[in-house]
């Protein structure tokens, strides 16, 4: 099930939340959440539920062992490694076996049959969550959870199980077994949830439609696209991917607040960054902090000299890229950022410091923009056609009438979508919140906006979702 489906909003979510609220004890509430999450997960293919149950069990046992071996550091470490490698092995098999066998077959003709493994929903997210659990216990940053069901709830919780954010165990360990709901946070959760749904159902989906029309995947159509079409299409894709992905996090965080969970922010207006370094502090924060805390720092981080640091960064960014999908272009996409991060750290650091903000901003946007081209086309031939097409090198036109028309037909929407990627709306909201303390009128205005807006946003989203029954989140493939 996806968040942006009618059956989720007006059936699953409403009913499970209703039962949750009338259930008296926290223990009961957790049972409700767990059962709901398992149903939610099984909805996309019940067989993969077994894998989720199994992987949670491995982490549960592993972590208990790690904790029990407190005084035996070597065996303790061994258990940690075994647990983690099993999880990574399963992730590797289910996610990358197809790619690896296909690549081997391509180059050395062996094996004869490419493995066809379907990707279990959300495996990239919950595998990482389960890894943080065992590692946090190992580092004594969290206590091992006695109850298997609570480990399962942590991994399977439907708010974040299938598309993030990647919640670290130590961040929610206490809230699983004891959390308080504040009315103020429920209110904020409602707003956040509605904004997220609107961002996905209305903004991201519309961007996707334009992007798909202008930058088609089919190479035979793509090569005839005008240069302007590809430029505009790629811009729409850039907007889409942020709006889509951050929408999911918005909804997850909002639902968390409604029941007393506090997930960390996953996006912080990445497109306003001034450098690639800053961008990755604002983009998919839960993923980059995972790699920082569970890969980069354990590898030695920046403590072992510049050479080791560059090697460590290389490993982290190759992994970050490859995490995004089982295709080689994602690996390149990660390394593309590695190059700029190294440059920013050692080569153009002084230059950047002296550059006016506006140019730094343009630099960032250009790098990110072309990065999304690398991200979009998994096939290298198609990628090259798209890139050449941007400079009219496919015997294609620079500008054609359809593109002009698509641009004009959507001009207000495009402006709106760009604004939605900037912190303007949240600044206005905060200003209104301060302003309302001063004047009665602004208080009434704020109350009305705050009460009416969520309902209106969900209604508009409903309208656009009707007749659009198949509508998965982009980040499903990860």
């Amino acid at each position, binding site marked *: 099930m996806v968040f942006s*489906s009618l059956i989720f909003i007006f059936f699953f979510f409403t009913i499970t939340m209703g039962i949750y609220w009338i259930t008296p004890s926290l223990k009961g509430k957790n049972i409700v959440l767990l059962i709901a999450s398992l149903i939610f997960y099984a909805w996309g293919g*019940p067989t993969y539920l077994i894998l989720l149950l199994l992987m949670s069990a491995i982490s549960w046992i592993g972590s208990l062992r790690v904790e029990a071996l407190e005084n035996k550091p070597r065996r303790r470490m061994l258990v940690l490694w075994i647990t983690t490698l099993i999880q990574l092995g399963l992730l590797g098999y289910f996610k990358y076996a197809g790619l690896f066998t296909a690549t081997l077959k391509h180059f050395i003709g062996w094996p004869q049959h490419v493995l066809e493994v379907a990707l279990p929903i959300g495996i990239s997210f919950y595998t990482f969550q389960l890894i943080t659990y065992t590692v946090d216990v190992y580092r004594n940053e969290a206590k091992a959870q006695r109850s298997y069901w609570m480990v399962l709830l942590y991994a399977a919780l439907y708010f974040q199980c299938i598309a993030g954010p990647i919640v670290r165990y130590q961040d929610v360990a206490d809230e699983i077994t004891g959390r308080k709901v504040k009315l103020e946070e429920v209110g904020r959760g409602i707003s956040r949830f509605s904004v997220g749904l609107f961002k996905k159902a209305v903004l991201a989906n*519309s961007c996707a439609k334009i992007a798909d029309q202008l930058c088609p995947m089919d190479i035979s*159509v793509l090569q*005839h696209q005008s240069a302007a079409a590809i430029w505009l299409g790629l811009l729409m894709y850039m907007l889409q991917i942020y709006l889509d992905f951050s929408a999911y996090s918005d909804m997850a965080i909002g639902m968390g607040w409604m029941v007393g969970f506090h997930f960390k922010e996953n996006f912080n207006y990445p497109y306003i960054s001034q450098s690639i370094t800053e961008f990755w502090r604002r983009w998919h924060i839960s993923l980059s902090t995972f790699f920082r805390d569970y890969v980069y720092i354990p590898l030695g981080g920046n403590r072992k000299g510049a050479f080791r640091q560059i090697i460590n960064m290389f490993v982290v960014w190759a992994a970050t890229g490859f995490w995004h999908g089982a295709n080689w272009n994602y690996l390149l996409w990660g390394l593309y950022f590695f190059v700029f991060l190294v440059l920013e750290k050692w080569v153009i650091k002084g230059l950047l410091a002296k550059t006016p903000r506006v140019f730094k901003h343009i630099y960032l946007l250009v790098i990110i923009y072309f990065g999304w081209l690398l991200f979009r086309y998994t096939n290298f031939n198609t990628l090259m056609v798209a890139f050449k097409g941007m400079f009219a090198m496919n015997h294609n036109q620079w500008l054609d*009438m*359809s593109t002009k028309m698509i*641009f004009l037909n959507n001009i207000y929407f495009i402006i709106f979508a760009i604004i939605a990627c900037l912190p303007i709306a949240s600044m206005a909201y905060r200003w209104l919140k301060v302003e*309302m303390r001063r004047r009665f009128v602004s208080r009434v205005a704020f109350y009305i906006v705050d009460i009416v807006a969520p309902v209106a946003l969900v209604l508009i989203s409903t309208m656009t979702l009707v*007749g659009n029954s198949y509508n998965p989140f982009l980040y499903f493939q990860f």
Partner: protein
Amino acid sequence: MLRKTRFKKAPSQKGYLSLKVIIFSLFLIIMTVIALIMPLRPTKSNIEKRTLAKFPKVSFQTLVNGKYFSDVTTWYADTFPMRESLMSDNAKFKEAYGIQTTQMIGQVSPQTKEKNKAATPKTTLTKKTNKADKIKNVDEKLDNVFISGNRAYSVYGFNQTAVDKYTDTINRFVDKVPNSKVYDIVVPTSSGIYLSDKTTKELGGSNQKKAINYIYKHLNKKVNKVDAFSEIDNHSKEYLYFRTDHHWTAKGAYYAYGQYMKKAGKTPSKLSDYKHRAFKGFLGTSYAYSNQASALGDTPDTVHTYQPQGTNTIKYTDRLNQPNQTGKIIADASKYDEASKYMAFIAGDEPYEEIHNPKIKDGSSVVVIKESFGNAFVPFLVNNYENVYVVDYRYYDDQLAKLVNEKHIQDVIFLNNISAASTDTLIDNIARITEN
């Protein structure tokens, strides 16, 4: 005094917050309840002309592979209460997205340039029997709609392989009916008449006049080619094409009929010889394809019909293969819904139809092999022939040559719009009924 101090304090938000939570929860609950009231759920969509998803049946396999659940999800969204009105609200909402005086929905299919045709055409239908099942029942499909002002066009893209297949198919057929005269009518679509060459080119389309000339040039000498294009073009100021639908109007068809009669050496009936009726409020395929663009929706079309003398009765075999159904040549479309008014002509797209005019006793007969453009054309022939046969090649199962020879049909008319004559899958269907 009291009031002043009350407002200076940081306001307690509890009351309003409770209100917010209650309103939002109630909203979700009400929507959920509405969504679960089964009678409110629609079962078919008029605008999309399709039956909506049905609630799936459980089976062990679909339960395990997840198909059952995805079908339930589809059903839930597809049959959501008030679907059609929510969809049209959504269409209105999307009109605020930008300046939409001209719009392009979809894309012109990639076209092939006109090249020198290979000397010996060898495009035959491969694996006839197997393929026949697959290619049957291919409906015409719009792949793009261009809207300018209150008129929608479908931009045409030339496809040489397909067009060559079309001419080869008809050329091969001619020899199978040596006792009949074969006519070919390729009808332009509205974009070929109304859009300038420059606009057509900019939209990625091809010149229809050239395409029709190409077809006529490559058709066998034994095929009589009817020049509908020039006659329609000469009268382009009249109401010859619908603005919200991809079809021509009956009047457009009348000019093609006139040209045909001339070619056949007969006198066409005057338009006033037919009984005129008009049905207002027609919003056709282009309107649906554009997701209900209000540029079109605000000014619906009118379907003008011209009923022949002598009879208004038609006998047909329907798509479930049931013979001897009766219908009207011109039906009363005033009760039809706004999307279906073109169904006024010859009972819509039926595989096989027969009209016998009791007023004519000369044994004359004609068969029209057509897609839906033929529907508006056929009624005019009834004034001039004792027997009019109609074959919709997309749904017809028998062999055309057999029909022509058994019924001793004198005149055989292939009628296609230029887009159909350039669509591979449709030509495969003509081949299917002509090549055994």
